[in-house]
């Protein structure tokens, strides 16, 4: 099993070597990257906004119900919501959601291209298929996902405020006081750095499992599942490493 793991890691590194090369034509690379930004980024705005709003709301309510102590000021609910959203939710949890949505999409798209010989057709033409297909996805996600992360932060905080005010567990004044209390701007940088790294992990691992599939539709389905599972696990692993590196 360990040998198999090292073999896969080796294959993945060789795959990255093929992916990270100079594009054949820059205008085609630019065109494909813009298409991928729309497909992987803009099309994810809805789901990220919905989940962020609800998560912000849940964090606020849970914090409120678990801190019903007269000694603890109410604005701490806002502080807890802000830090939870900034430090973990908008980078890591959003990355896990994107690993499911974007990862399976990438793996099944490239996997289908593999089993229907479309990748062979590219190779026959003399195109570096790995770079042509994967590099725009990686770049698009690394460029656009930080915007998703920032949006998620704002929507999450807004969701917390809306539900806090609606249920009466915290006033708008107290919530805003909590949001601004001992605010560390570096946390935003931290969240963005993690998002960029996670974007690379999700797109490259999912592409790898799609690109190396062989067989038919069953194998494409299986590679799609592997892409989601392994990119999620690697995201969690790197979350640990990055947290230690960036916050210690």
């Amino acid at each position: 099993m360990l040998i198999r793991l090292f073999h896969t890691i080796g294959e993945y590194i060789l795959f990255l070597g093929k992916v990270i090369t100079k594009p054949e034509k820059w205008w085609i690379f630019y065109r494909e990257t813009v298409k991928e930004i729309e497909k992987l980024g803009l099309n994810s705005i809805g789901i990220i906004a919905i989940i962020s709003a609800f998560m912000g709301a849940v964090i606020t309510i849970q914090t409120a119900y678990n801190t019903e102590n007269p000694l603890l000021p109410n604005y701490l609910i806002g502080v807890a919501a802000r830090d939870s959203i900034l430090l973990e939710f908008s980078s890591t949890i959003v990355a896990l959601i994107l690993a499911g949505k974007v990862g399976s999409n990438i793996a099944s798209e490239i996997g289908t291209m593999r089993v229907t010989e479309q990748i062979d057709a590219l190779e026959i033409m003399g195109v570096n298929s790995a770079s042509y297909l994967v590099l725009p996805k990686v770049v698009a996600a690394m460029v656009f996902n930080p915007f998703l992360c920032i949006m998620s932060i704002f929507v999450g905080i807004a969701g917390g405020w809306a539900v806090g005010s609606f249920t009466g567990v915290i006033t708008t004044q107290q919530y805003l006081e909590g949001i601004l209390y001992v605010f560390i701007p570096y946390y935003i940088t931290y969240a963005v750095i993690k998002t960029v790294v996670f974007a690379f992990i999700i797109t490259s691992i999912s592409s790898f499992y799609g690109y190396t599939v062989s067989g038919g539709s069953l194998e494409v389905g299986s590679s799609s599942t592997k892409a989601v599972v392994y990119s999620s696990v690697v995201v969690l692993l790197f979350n640990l490493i990055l947290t230690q590196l960036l916050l210690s």
Partner: protein
Amino acid sequence: MIRIENITKRFAETTVLKGISAVFEKGKTNLIIGQSGSGKTVLMKSIVGLHEVDEGEIYYNDTLFNKLSFNEKKLLRREVGMLFQGSALFDSATVQENVMYPLDMFTNKSFDEKLERVNFCLHRVNMDDSNSLFPSELSGGMKKRVAIARAIALNPRYLFCDEPNSGLDPKTSIVIDELIKEITEEYDITTIVNTHDMNSVMGIGDKIIFIYKGQKWWEGTKEDILQSDNKELNDFVFASKLAKRIRFGTE
């Protein structure tokens, strides 16, 4: 002209190709025939470099293909067109975008010049006015014709066709066969066709190589087939009762 010498290809413990040598001539439709699983697709993919051969040499004219560097192979492949069994058109692109793709990648022509070439290639395969259609809107035969148009867009010197008639009715198969033969003669290119369709063999086979259990078993022309007493070849070519009756006067 393409020449292969002693090609051997193994997958793990299984030897799929065993020392195959052959010459595929320019301006002719060269056919590789054999039963399913005989190794003809592996042979074709080895010739175009999609599989690395374990032993043997592949020459494109006088260039030793399997010793070329990655970039040299890429350059040579721009002279190669290939028609895949399932057409391999890009699903997310229209017919026009599919045919224009190699022109986009490897030429610096203006859009109008590329469009002119696309329209010429589509006209050549009788697919005029299909520019805006997507592959999902085309029949099997139409997909093959668009794939041929894409394969000839860059004026290739070598054309490979992997089972061009698979999944097509006999009438459409003849149209595709004739198109391949016409293009081969018109542009004087080296064409290699993998097939087990006997109509193709008798219709367009200028030169035929019969692969049996990974070996070159027989070589000749379509006229020679009718005279051959090679048992394995006759079992393959005249497999049906009707064909046996016509060839041997008995079942």
